[in-house]
């Protein structure tokens, strides 16, 4: 039986996943776009953000304090990483960047395993965010609403920053033609440190917010990183707008695929085959979407580079 309430609920979940992905993609797409830098360690910042927030929450009992501490800590870490390790890599090929940031992932994963153990941490929902709001007879969890609200707020702020400020202008200019910006006398490295710092803080925010809904575990950074890469490829490297549209598409399609694809297949396939094919195709859905987008627009939906 098809249930419209379930559809609405899952759309809601898809929206929430999409906004979480956007928090990660917004910073990363600029890193890729402006410096032509392949950074795999972004997922590690997300993971560390989640762990720091979880730990502070468990110590103090205050989720808000956890988020508030996690953001600046990871921002600082991000800026240090950028200045210390990544900067020498800008002039190198993509392969060196891939390997060095891969090395960072291995290090941070092992570091987390050493400090927090292999098990992962459960973060309790803060009391004031428990419960549901009923809209059209459908219970929507308060916490997820908050995640959506924060995500939308960040998206709005990023939009204003990028389109309405001088810094944003430099960021956009850097993404479309870095050499020209430098030739005009702008220190693009400073712009980039700023972008990287913002990206790190947003990753930490995503991690901290994900804590109570998803498990805080060691592999969490990589799993979401791959989805974020798909978002960025679909949206077009260096484009905030693309990251937003891509994230929404991926979030909603992924969740809807997982919930409804086997029901859909049962319409025309035997039950057995549908139950096998459903989850299998659902897990591939976002990659198929990516392939389809690339087929028609190899530079993504909103290409930022101009020649």
């Amino acid at each position, binding site marked *: 039986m098809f249930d419209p309430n379930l559809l609405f609920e899952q759309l809601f979940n898809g929206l929430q996943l999409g906004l979480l992905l956007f928090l990660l993609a917004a910073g990363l797409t600029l890193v890729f776009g402006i410096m*032509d830098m392949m950074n795999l360690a972004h997922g590690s910042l997300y993971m560390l953000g989640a762990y720091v927030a979880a730990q502070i929450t468990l110590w103090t009992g205050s989720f808000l304090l956890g988020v508030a501490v996690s953001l600046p800590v990871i921002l600082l870490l991000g800026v240090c990483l950028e200045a210390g390790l990544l900067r020498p890599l800008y002039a190198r090929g993509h392969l060196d960047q891939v390997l060095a940031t891969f*090395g960072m992932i291995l*290090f941070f994963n092992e570091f987390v395993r050493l400090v927090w153990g292999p098990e992962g941490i459960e973060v309790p929902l803060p009391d004031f965010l428990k419960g549901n709001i009923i809209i059209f007879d459908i219970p929507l969890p308060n916490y997820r609403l908050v995640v959506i609200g924060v995500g939308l707020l960040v998206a709005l702020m990023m939009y204003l920053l990028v389109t309405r400020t001088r810094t944003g202008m430099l960021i956009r200019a850097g993404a479309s033609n870095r050499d020209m910006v430098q030739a005009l006398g702008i220190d693009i490295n400073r712009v980039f440190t700023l972008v990287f710092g913002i990206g790190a803080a947003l990753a930490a925010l995503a991690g901290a917010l994900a804590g109570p809904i998803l498990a805080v575990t060691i592999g969490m950074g990589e799993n979401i990183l791959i989805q974020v890469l798909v978002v960025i*490829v679909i949206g077009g490297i260096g484009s905030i707008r693309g990251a937003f549209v891509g994230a929404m598409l991926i979030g909603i399609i992924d969740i809807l695929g997982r919930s409804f694809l086997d029901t859909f297949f049962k319409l025309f396939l035997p039950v057995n085959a549908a139950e096998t094919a459903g989850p299998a195709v659902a897990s591939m859905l976002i*990659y198929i979407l990516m392939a389809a987008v*690339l087929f028609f627009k*190899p530079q993504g939906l909103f290409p930022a580079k101009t020649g």
Partner: protein
Amino acid sequence: MGNRAQIIIVGTIFVGLGLVPLFAELTQTPFYLDLARRMMILAIGALSLNLIMGYGGLISFGHAAYIGIGAYVVGICAEHELVSGFIQWPLAIIVSGLFAIIFGLISLRTRGVYFIMITLALAQMMYFLGVSLDRYGGDDGLPLIERSNFGAVVDITNNVTLYFIVLGALVLSLLFCKRLINSRFGMVLQGTRSNETRMKTIGFPTLRYQLTAFVIAGMMAGFAGALLANHTDFINPDMMHWTRSGDLIIMVLLGGMGSLAGPVVGALAFILLEELLSGVTEYWQLIFGPFLILVVLFARGGLLGFFANKEQRDE
């Protein structure tokens, strides 16, 4: 290039590999037989990656997918009681080749960072596909009921026999790569790596060459996967996990990219490092991660380049 030094190093490695079964038998340490066999299988995978990455300039971050596909073909065949190696192994190569055609057509539309991300994403798709295949073990993987059966020709259920089959496969792969790289095809591929626009202008359909190389590399990796399934008697999605693809890249880079035997040296170095470090501490990646960063920053040209190649490179 330090050709003679390279030959000496590689020759020594192969003589050493040939003696491992004897050593393992005399010292009663079958562990080393297993370790060396795994290393050689990974070396075949790394060799195939080096074809596209070192000589083609195409950084594929999803090469483990083809190893996984090859392994899954063998595993799935065995599950359906199709155990003949004469069917399984060619099928593994063909199926990996077919996937490589599709994935290559998608990813070769792009370059640079895009290419890395797309190969990574497609490989991860195969990983999740493996996880969702409940019929074939899903997340937990699937034990191989029976190794590939080559009838009266050779019996690879014997571990030492399988070892020498793998060793032979590695030697053949190396010779194949040598032929390929020095052929006209290999020249065009390397020319495209250096300057794609120029090659196009001269009139070479570069995409066709790159796709062919991509597919050949995928088929070789699929073959390595068929060996790997027989080696571990087990298949699971982890073979396709993106960190496995990362391992392959590390092996190629450790050995020295774009040098013919580099991946073999790199695979050896990788396995030895893994063994050594994990013997020192359970948290060995705490050391390995920074080591990797140091290699990237300081040892350009890989280990083979670092030790054997004080002279000028010839290209």
